[in-house]
């Protein structure tokens, strides 16, 4: 097995053959298996538990279903509440992602390609944001959002999320934009293409890998965001999925099976989204770490 795999050229850009050529041993696979078990078991418990009945769960919390019931899942999928929360979460995540990408690419382009006084300071301002996740700012942020009249609206969640996501976006994008060859820019200018035109025609397409990475990170961050919606959205009609999961879990605290079904359905989108773009995320982080 090892000879065939090794002689075949690696088709994955991020998995070059730099690991020392040593046959994977039994021990390695054992560790890998233990790892898989540790990661999967809790997730499997949530998903499988949704197929059981409460009586079963109470009697034997760690077992498999005697018969696989779909009614918990069907109930959740048939409820307006769930779909309303999916819609709210989707709106918030899509709007956050678009705004972060647009604002982030523009600012990163300036930081990567323009020479001006205060450029270093500007970059430090944005990177400083990485030091302060939303926790510290949440109380005053609530006051700020309230005085802007954005309470109980998705906009009140989206705008601060964009601001807090800008740091990581810019940190990842700047190295990407730096790698665009200088000659390309010069050639474009020679042809009478202005910097802004160059930005739309060349920079955006060429930085797509980085853009996709930061877009995915923004989407997932928004999809999973809990603390900000907890403060801003007090009206159930505006709840996003995380708030919905929590409300559902306390409302049906005796109906464990239903809670498990609701919980597993709410984690599917982020998981699917991530597994589709996993390489992009690794690629983007590689650029950021090296840069």
């Amino acid at each position, binding site marked *: 097995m090892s000879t065939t795999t090794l002689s075949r050229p690696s088709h994955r850009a991020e998995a070059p053959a730099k690991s020392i050529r040593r046959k994977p041993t039994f021990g390695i696979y054992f560790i890998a298996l233990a790892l898989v078990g540790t990661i999967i078991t809790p997730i499997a418990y949530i998903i499988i538990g949704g197929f059981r009945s409460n009586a079963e769960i109470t009697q034997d919390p760690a077992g498999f279903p005697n018969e696989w019931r779909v009614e918990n899942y069907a109930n959740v999928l048939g409820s307006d509440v769930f779909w309303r929360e999916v819609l709210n979460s989707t709106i918030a995540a899509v709007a956050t992602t678009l705004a972060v990408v647009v604002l982030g690419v523009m600012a990163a382009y300036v930081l990567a390609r323009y020479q001006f006084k205060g450029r270093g300071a500007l970059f430090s301002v944005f990177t400083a944001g990485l030091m302060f996740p939303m926790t510290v700012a*949440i109380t005053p942020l609530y006051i*700020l959002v309230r005085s802007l009249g954005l309470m109980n609206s998705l906009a009140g969640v989206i705008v601060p999320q*964009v601001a807090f996501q800008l740091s990581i976006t810019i940190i990842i994008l700047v190295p990407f934009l730096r790698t665009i060859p200088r000659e390309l820019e010069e050639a474009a200018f020679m042809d009478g293409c202005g910097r802004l035109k160059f930005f739309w025609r060349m920079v955006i397409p060429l930085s797509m890998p980085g853009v996709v990475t930061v877009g995915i990170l923004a989407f997932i961050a928004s999809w999973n965001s809990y603390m900000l919606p907890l403060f801003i959205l007090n009206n159930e009609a505006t709840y996003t*999925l995380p708030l919905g999961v929590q409300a559902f879990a306390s409302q049906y605290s005796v109906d464990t099976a239903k809670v498990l079904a609701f919980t597993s359905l709410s984690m599917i989108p982020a998981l699917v989204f991530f597994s589709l773009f996993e390489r992009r995320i690794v690629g983007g982080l590689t650029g950021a770490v090296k840069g």
Partner: protein
Amino acid sequence: MTPTNDSAVKTPVAPVESALGGGDAVASPPPSRGHSRRRWAIRAEIALLAGPALLVFLTFVILPVIIAAYYGFFSWSGYGPATDFVGLRNYIVILQDDAFQSALRHNAIIVVLSLVIQGPIAIGLALLLNRKMKFQSSLRVLIFAPYVISEVVVGTGWSLILASNGALNGMLEKLGLEGLQQDWLSNPELAIWTLMAIITWKYIGFAVILFLAGLQGIPEEITEAAAIDGASYWQIQRRITLPLMGPTIRIWAFLSIIGSLQLFDLVYIVWGQYVAETAGTSTMATYMVSSGRNAGSYGYGNAVAVVIFLISLTVALLYQRFVLRRDTDGAVTGGSDN
């Protein structure tokens, strides 16, 4: 890499700009005006492109800190103007409050344990996943999965698993290990370790992906040369890979420390504000929410925010001064070879 890259970039760009400006100057009569007009155009572009992001960032990331600093001096219920100026009293109360002190202690424990537990495991897993093996890419996806699942889902799931009549105790009973059954969530001697287990499960994938990214930045030639010279796999990892991974590890440690200092979601979801205190898992952030917003004391909550901010800032600055500085030095000197 950054500074050298800049200077490398700067030199070609200046002639281009002046050449373009010069070109303009030939066409338009007064050379100085064309040049300065072009400078203004560039300034306008910079403002146009970076302005919106900067505005949003300053308003929603930086301004809140200033707002917090202001209201922290008031006793304020959150509605109407804040008039009851109390000076430093909020701060004195915070620092003397046993609940805050134990929250701070829990944060300190979480910071240290996160580094000590996650660091070595993540390095090991990254080395493992960097080797050629079957299912390598599936494993990479899988290990990152918990990081992608929301804190609410993770918290809800784990609290059902770890409840005293939950799946973990059920499984132990099935295996005939009733002796190991525990009250995982509410036993104060155990709860912080339970929290650490959940944190590790949730966040280790991020460390591993970061380390994998760092490993891919290590030139293949170095490890290959060492292998040809007869170095063993472990020698290579210890003498070459790990030192070269230094910068990545230090960045991860920084992010981990900051994250641990601000931990909120998982504790609040699994334990709730009241149980967290008795179980010994409360953090500064859960203290801030329960004694601020939930108690209707926004002045006090803002003061707690300022305290968390100052602690985080101090730690961040110290870390940058004494740990990350080596990396910037390295980048400057090492980068000049490029």
